[in-house]
């Protein structure tokens, strides 16, 4: 139910090309998605997908470092990249007449990347700072890693996308080069263009710039499945924070499973808006939490549904936890009301229509679904969501919100808690004593 059709072509070398011709503004977004993320990593090189995302900006023989940025600037293009569990993607947002430049730059770095040892070392230092800034200092950063590591004991969703700090010190350039050779291939990529360009133009440019790149070996599938969870798991992180925090994760199905859609609707009823159940219960009525958030983690393999909250000053973490358990338990016992379901459906419809406002968001949804299952999933998602009934929600809540499927993460304020990683005395990559990662790895 997109407002414009999606054109799909698969080139001979396996590159999947998706385009949507939209005339709403004279702009376009190009996104190049690689079907590789932390899901394809192994212990010792965790974080390599994300490291690689950084290295993709280091230049090629045709466009040396700095030239890439300069060309984008000069053309008024904005760009960036992101890495997730299931994929890595690179994008340019531009006036539609600059599309060819974006095509050329992306095709050039699919194959021609220069990987200099000095650049590599310097970039690892940047990524360690990124890890400190985004995972180690924010109150919930390490707790959420610990919860992931506890929910997923065997599956690669176990480790964080950014990687363990020790791996960010010991990974080698050879590891990274092997990774590039294996995964950065046209047959492992999806090229998405949304904007004011005709599908024929997009395809012609895609053939010109990507058509000659040879197909690589097929990527072996990730077959590992997380074993059944047999009991409630409780983990905690002590940290010098002001307020206790709570992160509860329930095992949930993969994105293609209908129950994942049911959980999406349930998420609206539980968490979206001031009329939602958890806002009303723990913020408005009982005033137990400063905030509550969470929802379905949509992933290729079975994943989780999470709830996250901070307790107010003077409220115990157990009181807040019990209130959240009570509300999820209620969903498993009593059907949601007609009014609640109607409100959720309307919000999903409105979100869907507003998501059609931006080329970027359309491309983002197509690319993510193409990597997880099939791009058609995002075309069908609205209809599928609207089909969810109160009975579906009751059934799925009954199956998912069970103590034995649950991991409870506690953030415990402790002014004397040790720092996760003290400053590096040397810029050399040195093996790090085990204690550095204790809060995370002890539970891993």
């Amino acid at each position, binding site marked *: 139910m997109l407002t414009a059709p999606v054109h799909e072509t698969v080139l001979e070398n396996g590159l999947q090309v998706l385009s949507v011709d939209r005339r*709403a*503004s004279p*702009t376009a977004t190009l996104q190049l998605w690689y079907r590789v993320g932390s899901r394809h990593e192994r212990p010792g090189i965790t974080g390599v997908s994300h490291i690689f995302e950084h290295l993709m*900006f280091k230049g090629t023989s045709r466009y040396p470092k700095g030239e890439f940025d*300069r060309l984008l*600037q*000069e*053309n*008024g*293009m*904005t760009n*960036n990249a992101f890495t997730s569990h299931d994929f890595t993607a690179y994008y340019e*947002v531009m*006036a539609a*007449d*600059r599309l*060819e430049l974006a095509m050329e730059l992306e095709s050039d770095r699919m194959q021609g990347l220069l990987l200099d040892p000095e650049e590599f*070392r*310097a970039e690892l*230092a*940047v990524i360690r*700072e*990124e890890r400190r*800034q985004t995972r*180690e*200092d924010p*109150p919930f950063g390490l707790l959420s890693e610990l919860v992931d590591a506890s929910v997923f004991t065997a599956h690669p969703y176990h480790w964080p996308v950014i990687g363990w700090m020790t791996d960010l010190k010991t990974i080698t350039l050879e590891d990274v080069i092997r990774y590039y050779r294996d995964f950065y291939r046209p047959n492992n990529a999806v090229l998405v263009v949304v904007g004011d360009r005709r599908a024929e133009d997009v395809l012609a440019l895609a053939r010109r710039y990507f058509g000659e790149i040879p197909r690589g070996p097929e990527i072996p599938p990730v077959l590992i499945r997380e074993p059944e969870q047999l009991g409630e798991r409780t983990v905690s992180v002590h940290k*010098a924070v*002001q307020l206790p925090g709570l992160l509860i994760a329930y095992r949930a199905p993969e994105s293609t499973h209908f129950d994942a859609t049911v959980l999406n609707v349930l998420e609206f009823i539980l968490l979206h*808006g*001031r*009329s939602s159940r958890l806002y009303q219960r723990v913020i*408005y009525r009982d*005033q137990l939490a*400063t*905030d509550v958030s969470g929802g379905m983690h949509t992933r290729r393999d079975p994943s989780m549904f999470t709830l996250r909250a*901070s307790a*107010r*000053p003077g409220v115990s973490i157990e009181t807040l936890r019990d209130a959240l358990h009570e509300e999820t338990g209620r969903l498993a016992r009593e059907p949601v009301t007609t*009014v609640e379901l109607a*409100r959720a459906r*309307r*919000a*999903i419809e*409105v*979100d869907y*229509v*507003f998501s059609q*406002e*931006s080329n970027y968001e359309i491309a983002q949804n197509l690319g993510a679904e193409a990597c997880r299952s099939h791009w058609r999933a995002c075309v069908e998602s609205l209809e599928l969501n609207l089909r969810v009934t109160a009975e579906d929600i009751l059934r799925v809540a009954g199956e998912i919100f069970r103590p034995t499927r649950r991991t409870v993460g506690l953030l415990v304020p402790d*002014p004397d*808690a*040790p*720092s*996760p990683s*003290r*400053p*590096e*005395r040397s*810029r050399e990559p040195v093996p790090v004593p085990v204690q550095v990662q204790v809060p995370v790895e002890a539970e891993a």
Partner: protein
Amino acid sequence: MSQETPTQFRIHVERHRLSNGLELLLVPRRELPIVSLTLLVRDGIAAERSGEAGLAHLTAVTFPQGTRSRSALQLSEEVESLGTSLGVHADYDHLSLGLATLARDFDAALRLLAEVALQPAFADDEVERKRRDVLSHLERRKDDLADRVRNRLAGTLYGGHPYRNPRLGSTETVAALAPGLVRAFYERVFVASRSVLAIVGDIEPARLIDRIEAAFGVWPERAAPAPPPPPPAPRTVRGIETIQKRGVVQATIRAGSLSIARNDPDYAALQLVNYILGGSGFGSRLMRSLREERGLTYGVYSGFSARREAGHFSIGLQTSLDSAELALREVLREVDRLLQDGVTDNELRWAERFFTGSLPLSFQTNDQLATYLLEQELFDLEDEFWMRDLERMKSLSRSDLDAAARRHIHPEQFAVVVLGDFDETTPAPRLA
């Protein structure tokens, strides 16, 4: 590559003024069956009086807590039955209320927005509830390192001016706010003749005026609030302050000085200067020096705050505790280099082309468009200022940029704030 991107970005705006002085900006955009409504009043945090820090925010977040005819829950249910939620925001020079809905729900959205804006209940128990919410948010924010550093810097730069007030206020000021102050603040700043209602989306302007008049025409006349005090005199010396925070692994640094108002004629030149120094992400001088060459930080950015009176210029970053002094030194070195040697021809050309080329990207969504229109109103900018700014940029030379930078960036007056867990082995950085 072609350089044919349209630099003409015209927006068809229909302007009207209701009898009570409320200004209407109506922009039809028909691509999708959606519409965004934003009501902006031209006073915000800067209208807080002494001891009232946090009152603008408390007022904004109390709007959803009910109207004369609906309780908090009834109002939320009514708004959210349209698949949307009420947006409220308090900024330094404005307050805003907004709803974005499907076009078929326009009438209901318009009525609800008017009801919230003109008949807020501000019941004592609901104000008290929100006050407790804000106090608990303030407690949580003590762990938001960048926020703490930003607030401390503003406190140092703005002296006694209300621009120093943190957006949420402080634990001390919010704890002391009496419930009656919310209504008093509302009556002080919610003045029809100082307000703008922007409606962007799938609308037919001619058919809306009567309906808007019916919804918003009942807004009573009120006197405009007293203007805020003039901004404080700039500092005359450089100084550094440290915030000790246990358990953190990075130093959070921000350095800045008072600078221009948003409607200063040098604004366009300074946008280019800032782009070159630290406003352009990976390509900026600061990012190249601190991230690319030295691996000191994940990101370093500079920027000017847009304010009606004097704003400020600042540079912020996070780095390992033991790199703080080196990183700060490099930041100051880049600022000095900019002021001494100026920008290069190439930098000027690339920056100007970036702004020209990226203009179409700024007008993709209804909300983006409304933001530009409201910025124009809020700061009394020229009509279609985004195009006037581009014309100005094209006419600027290197020496124009260098002169503007020297006029408005003052490292000798920089206040520097550093937060971290410092001790004898890893001492807090000092200024050379």
